């Protein structure tokens, strides 16, 4: 089995701009009304002047234990041996939604045709685009960078083989991952309690986003 690809997320660097989810829709030619394969949730607490907000960007985590794959009756969902990416063969899907029940992250989405589609780490394009594709390659080897990673202004999202993502994560995040946080399905940086540091990072990101948006 090849090395498992996985996502990394740093909530301290996320500015909540939704570039990840919008670019995902564009890459995969998804309707504006369609459910997002990648969602950005804004968690808030407190009231002015002690108001705090924490944006969280999430998608299919391509779990090492893929609960969706286990429950899929027609074996339409595959946890790939070669790169660990979870894909769906929509020519087998019966649209029973059982994967939606089983997924802890609410990743499966269902279109008007009732068939499941979700993030395929940009292995291919469009619903079901990942199924049957050759092994995921890194960008430097000619592979496509996941659009969410490519378009994240704050570099809050990363993706790659587990060892490489672990090498880029902070010691605290790596340790937590090794301690089975999130069932070792995704590497997440601890939330920086230093509000000033976090605000600075977000300010930088927001300036970059403003510049990009003209």
């Amino acid at each position, binding site marked *: 089995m090849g090395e498992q690809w996985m996502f990394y997320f740093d*909530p301290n660097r996320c500015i909540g701009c939704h570039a990840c989810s919008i670019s995902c829709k564009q890459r995969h030619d998804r309707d504006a009304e369609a*459910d997002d394969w990648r*969602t950005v*949730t804004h*968690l*808030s*607490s*407190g009231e002015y002047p002690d108001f705090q907000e*924490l944006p*969280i960007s*999430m998608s299919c985590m391509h779990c090492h234990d893929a*609960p969706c794959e*286990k*429950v*899929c*009756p*027609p*074996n339409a969902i595959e946890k790939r041996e070669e790169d660990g990416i979870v894909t769906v063969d929509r020519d*087998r*899907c*019966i*649209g*029973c*939604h*059982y994967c*939606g*029940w*089983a*997924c*802890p*992250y*609410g990743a499966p*989405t*269902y279109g008007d*045709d*009732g*068939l499941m589609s979700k993030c395929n780490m940009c292995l291919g394009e469009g619903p079901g685009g990942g199924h049957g594709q050759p092994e995921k390659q890194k960008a430097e080897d000619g592979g496509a960078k996941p659009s969410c990673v490519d378009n994240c202004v704050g570099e809050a999202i990363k993706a790659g083989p587990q060892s490489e993502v672990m090498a880029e994560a902070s010691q605290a995040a790596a340790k*937590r991952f090794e301690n089975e*946080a*999130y069932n070792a399905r995704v590497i*997440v940086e*601890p*939330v920086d*309690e230093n509000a000033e540091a976090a605000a600075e990072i977000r300010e930088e990101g927001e300036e970059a986003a403003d510049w990009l948006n003209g």
Partner: protein
Amino acid sequence: MAQRVIRMSELSLFALFTEFHWLPADYWDLSIPVYLYLAVVAGGAYLTGASACYIRARREAGPCCLENEIARWGFMLSVAAAAGAGLAVLSHLAVIYRAILFPIYLTNFGSWITIGTWILVGLSVFAVVCLVLQLFGENAAADDGASLFPRAIVARLGVLDTLDELVDRVRPPMNVFAGLHVVGSLLALATIYTGFELAIVETVPLWNEPVLVPALFLISGVAAGIGLTLGVTLLFEREIGPVYGGYATVVGVLSGISLVLVGYGWQALATSNSPAAAASYVHLTTGSLYLGSLLVVVGFLLPLVAGLAIGIGALTGRVSGTVERVGGPVLIGSFGLLVIGGLALRIVLLLAAEQAPVVVVG
């Protein structure tokens, strides 16, 4: 679907960061509780029919006995419920033909949907075979009763004699017949899979009870299947004798066990530390779902009281004149409530479900 996320750096922040929503309706289509329910009702009705055949054989009862009526109604309702379950689940699917071609498409035998499909189809086949054997042939021709109405339909088609002859020709010997009932009864009990379909969903604490939920689904569904068969039988055969009393007692006992399981689950939910369980508890104790919860309790309580009181009386031959007069309507009413309560149980369990939020560790 927007995913709920909470941050747990401090427990006090929990409420601030927690936002519970109803899960999107297309996940919890009404067809799902109907499917989960009718599959077990089919099992319960089959068990009633098979056991009536067994009692008839042991008592060496002749034609026109109550066991014949119970057996035929049991198998008939089993076929109808299994067909209803199948149609309900098919109506929920996006690509129906792939589900109909299940031997080709449903290849993941680790999935409860695949396992359940084979169980339901197997039970349907056994129920149809048993029903045909009960409805046609020399013995059925000599029998009498409302449950024989399909014979009138077949007679209108002009093939009744042919069918009677054919069924007598292929009728298996007694030991094969008994084997048929044993396998069919095992399939009927295997409808416990409907509980496992929910119980394995780890992210919903309301369902994630691998013993409680399957046991509750099986016992309450079988009780409803037996109750439904008895209720329909009693509509046409007003006599409450020892055989009927025995069945009514069983329904009472099963309703009581269901009630105990519901109470245990309720207690576990009320004392759970999981936020999703707490949210489910709030749903079940407020608004329309509270009425549903009450319906579930009443739906098990009345058959418990009526089934045991009238059932044990009839079983032991100690039924007073008054009880004999009102016993029929009371049993029909309480068994009807049991059937409604069993469905209400599944509906509230699905609608009150809350998925455990993803935790962002601070």
